[in-house]
Every structure is written in structure tokens, then in C-alpha cells.
């Protein structure tokens, strides 16, 4: 999930780096407070996504720990509605390119927390793990904790991941070719239940 077009955004990445370099002069970032303007701006994300971008609700994703280009990619695809959303398109269009880069750095530096998700079906975890190894792990490496150009699955919110899979399967959200092949194979071999097992497994990863 969360596939992006690889190598698409060298310019954005360069800008992000440039931005970090400019925004962190001698004052270096205090552990307590980044640039106050960015802190306040990020504070508008956290009443939905949780303090520091790590929420506890089942349907809203945690937005921490992503590589900047992945964060920027998500916001840009919300802005142009190529990633379908209920509310994020309307919100993402309120931020400029440089503001999104600031937010990407801010949340990218925060650790991805994995609070318990009591709605997980534990009977699915073992089988889900085996299926994930076969269909997902080649891109979603290290039990879904990282990977190049993909979102974090390990400990991500279960209901959010279900919505994402539904959007990929329905065609509402575009898939990269390799992802599309894996999705097709998984569906043919194991059906909806295969996806459900995998998602319960990834949600359970600590």
C-alpha cells in the first residue's frame, strides 16, 4: 500500500533538504520545540491524527516516521484527488509546497508509535504473517516497518488500511504494476479473507 512512483520527486527531496538546512541554523532544534510556526501548523493536524501524529482511533492513520518524499507524495495526491479521500483533499489544498515540506520533515522526525489495537482479530495474525511474507514483504520490508516508496504498515491503523485496500481494489486509487500483480494474485489465491488476514497481521506488529 502507499505505493508511489519511484524516483518521481528528486526536486522535492532536494527542496526538503535545502529547507532543513535553512531552518536549522545555530539554534539547532530544541528537543522541546521546533520552529514555532511549524509547531503551530502541525498542531492543526494532530486533533485528527493524534499528538505528534500518532493517534489511537481505528480509522485515522498515524502520519509519523515517513520519508519526506512519501509524506509529500501523499499530500500532493490528496490535493489533486488522485488519492481519493473524504476530508484530506479539502485540507491538503490549504498548504503550499513549502509548508508541506516543513510538515514532512516535522512528522518524519517523530517516531511511529504502535499502541494496542483492541479490534484486531488475533486468530488471523499467524496466517496473515505467512501471506504477507509471500505477497507483501518484498516491498514492505522488515515486517512492514519500512521500504522504499511505500507507507508504513507495521502497527498502522487497521480500518485505515482496509479503506486503502478497498480503494486500490476498486481502482479508485492507482497501483504500481508490481503492486497490482501482487493484489491480483492474492485475490485469486486467497480472496478478501487473504487481505483481511494480512491487514490484521500488519496492524498487530509492534
Amino acid at each position, binding site marked *: 500500500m502507499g505505493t508511489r512512483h519511484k524516483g518521481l520527486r528528486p526536486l522535492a527531496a532536494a527542496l526538503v533538504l535545502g529547507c532543513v538546512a535553512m531552518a536549522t541554523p545555530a539554534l539547532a532544534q530544541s528537543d*522541546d520545540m521546533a520552529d514555532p510556526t511549524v509547531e503551530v501548523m502541525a*498542531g492543526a493536524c494532530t486533533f485528527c491524527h493524534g499528538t505528534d501524529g500518532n493517534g489511537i482511533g481505528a480509522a485515522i492513520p498515524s502520519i509519523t516516521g515517513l520519508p519526506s518524499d512519501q509524506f509529500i507524495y501523499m499530500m500532493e495526491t490528496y490535493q489533486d484527488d488522485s488519492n481519493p479521500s473524504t476530508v484530506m483533499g479539502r485540507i491538503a*489544498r490549504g498548504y503550499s509546497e513549502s509548508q508541506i515540506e516543513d510538515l514532512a520533515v516535522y512528522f518524519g522526525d517523530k517516531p511511529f508509535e504502535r499502541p494496542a489495537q483492541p479490534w484486531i482479530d488475533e486468530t488471523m495474525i499467524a496466517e496473515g504473517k505467512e501471506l504477507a511474507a509471500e505477497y507483501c514483504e518484498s516491498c514492505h520490508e522488515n515486517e512492514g516497518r519500512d521500504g522504499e516508496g511505500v507507507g508504513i504498515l507495521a502497527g498502522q491503523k487497521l480500518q485505515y488500511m482496509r479503506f486503502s485496500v478497498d480503494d486500490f481494489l476498486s481502482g479508485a486509487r492507482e497501483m504500481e504494476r508490481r503492486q497490482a500483480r501482487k493484489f491480483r494474485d492474492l485475490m485469486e489465491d486467497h480472496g478478501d479473507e487473504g487481505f483481511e488476514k494480512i491487514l490484521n497481521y500488519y496492524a498487530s506488529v509492534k
Partner: protein
Amino acid sequence: MNTTRRGFLRTTAAATVVGAVGLPHIARAAAPRFVVVGGGPAGATAAKYLKRYAPGATVTLIEANPTYTTCFMSNEVIGGDRDFATLQVGYEGLEAHGVTVMHDLVTGIDPDAKTVATQGGESVQFDRCIVAPGIDFKYDAIEGYSAEAAEVMPHAWKAGPQTTLLRSQLEAMEDGGTVIVAAPPNPFRCPPGPYERICLIANYLKQHKPKSKIIVLDAKDKFSKMPLFTQAWEMFYGYGTDNSMIEWVSKADGGTVTGVNPETMEVTAVAGSFKGDVVNIIPPQHAGTIAHTAGLVEDGWAPVNKGTFESLVVPGVHVLGDSSVAASMPKSGSSANSQGKALAAGALALAMDQEPPVPHLANACYSIGGPEHGFSVAAVYSYDDFENALKPVEGSGGVSPIDASPESRRRELFYAHSWFENIKADAWG
């Protein structure tokens, strides 16, 4: 204020680093004292984020009640879809962040002596005071209505015993009864709230007392998310047909309520007299009492600098949340939370004679129209310091599309519930 923002950054970073380690080379700048009056979503957010931004600061939150009951999602309790206990939050989370929490009632604020006085006889010193008392009711706007009358005809617009009272009255009502909901004039807390409440009461009645009716007496001709609410009323509750469970009387049709009689359960509106079995009066509103006592209010609400939420009337005192005039942001929990962070950073800067940041804020507000049916309004705001205005960023924001799919409506319900969990944790956790 002629210091540059860069200067502010440097000093803040220096001060917080020092604060975190040992203290205080920078005289008063290193450990400013803040008193927060009121522990709702606005006050709690401000207190928590002041400590997060400046661990060396002294933050005292004074709140009369030992627990807070959120207004948001209380309509689900009234409709029978949610346990009341899930609305309640305590203050242990704030204490864990280093906030001193006093359960007492603030009776006065002296901006010259920089002290807050409480009913319990305490006097607390501050460098900056943050007043976040929410709303109070203009009882005298409706003849016969009062705090006592609200025990018979609840407002349920401050969550708590009023919420459970309205719920129990709906449960006790016979099938075929009439529920009257009086919606207030602008501005008021939670603009879509009355209309979500109508949906969730109708949803309850449809399942359990289908012969019942809801009469909405409104002091307005238009309301928040009106096309989306009207659509939900049509989809689920027969609105617009002869069999409609809901009858909406607009201001133009005489919906403005002028008086009540709790003994006869009659409600007088411009259009005439109505009799209800359950009567929910949401009265006209103004800023909370202490904002008036402290001289912060003009025309019912507290005017503020919308970048720092410092009072335009009393320097050194900030007003946050529903009491303040923060247009064009609505009076919502999300607005208060987003503004609370701007206030925390801004008040901190001002306490250190530095330039406050220019805030970029947001609001997101979900409403529930029926089973698996949610929708929202959202917007992003930038602060224009020349006009002292919070302006929606062009091209952003808006309400859910009127033609959204059932799946989209279903997801918004999920998001509404996740937002509820996350904002509670962000403000009080």
C-alpha cells in the same frame, strides 16, 4: 513589536533548552508563569502545549469540575448510540505533563496585579493569563427560561447532567409524542450541533417510537451544512413528505422562540404556541461568565488578536475557545484545539518579549446524519495580521460533496469516531 521572528526562534530555543536543563539565566523569560482558566478543549490544549513548548514554564489550570464532559459526541448519547462515560475525561494527563491542576472556581482576574482570585480563597500569580470558559446562556432572551426551567426543558448544550436528562426524557416519552428542539441564533457553540441532534433523536424515534414527531423552532433561515442535513432528513426521516418525522420552522416562518412555560410544556415562538412532550431549548449564547466579570467582553464575546488570542481589551490576558471572536473559524472543538497551539506559542513569545509566530490553523468538524452516514466541514485558515482576520486559504476547505457515495458517508462516520478519540487524547492526554 519589532523583533524579528528569527530572533524569537533563537530565544525560544535557548530558553527551552535552558528550561529543560536547569534554569534561569534569562531572568523571567526562562520560566514565565501562565494561569489557564477553564479545562475544556481550549484550556486543556493550551495548558498541555505550553508545557510541551516550554517545559520550564509554570502552568496552572483552574477548573471547577473534577472531570470534563465533552459536548462533542454527546448527541450520540442523547440518541442512545453511545455510553455517557466515553464523554468524560480527567485531568491526570495534564498533571503528567507538569501542569498544576486546581479544582476551584475563578471569581476575578486582576490584570494590573497579575493575579487570579478563586472562590476557595486562593490568589495565583501570572505573567500571562488564558481565559477559556466556553459559553454561557442568555436566559433572559427567552421569557420564562432559566437554569431552573432547564431542569424541565433541558438545553443539553453543556454536556453532563443535562445530557443524561434529555436522554432519559426521550426514553420516557410515549410513542406518538412531540419533541421540540429550539435552535439558537448565530453565533453559538457548534453550529451544526442542533441539526445533528435532530438527526440522532429522529434515528432513535424511528426505531423505538415511530409515530413521534420533532418540531424544530429555529431562529435562523440557514444553518451549517444545511444541504447535507436536509439530504439526511430526506433519506432517513421522510423529510419533505407527508410522513416526515421532522418539521423545521425557519425564522422567516416564525421559528424564533420568545418564551416558554415549563409547567404546561408550552413553547411560544413568533409563529404561535407549540406544546411538546420533550422540550430541548438551546438558548442564545454569549461568552462564559468569567470573561464578562474580567471585562473582556464586547457585544457578548471577547475580541482578540487572532494571531495570539490576546484580548484587545485587557493586555496580558488571552481569551481562547468559544468565548473569543475568532471568525471566520467556527466555535468548534477542533478550532479551539488548533487555536490553543497558536495561543501557547504566541503567549510564550510575548512573555519573553519576542515576536509571536503567524499561525496557520485548521478546523474539521464531523456530523452524523443516520446509520453509517457521516459528513464534514473542514477548512484551513491563515492569519492576516493587517486585518486581524483568520481567512480560509483559497481553494481549500468546504463541506462533503452532496453527491458523495454511501461508502464515503460510511467512512466519514468512522473518521468522526477516530477524531473523537484522538482529540480527547491530544487535549487532555
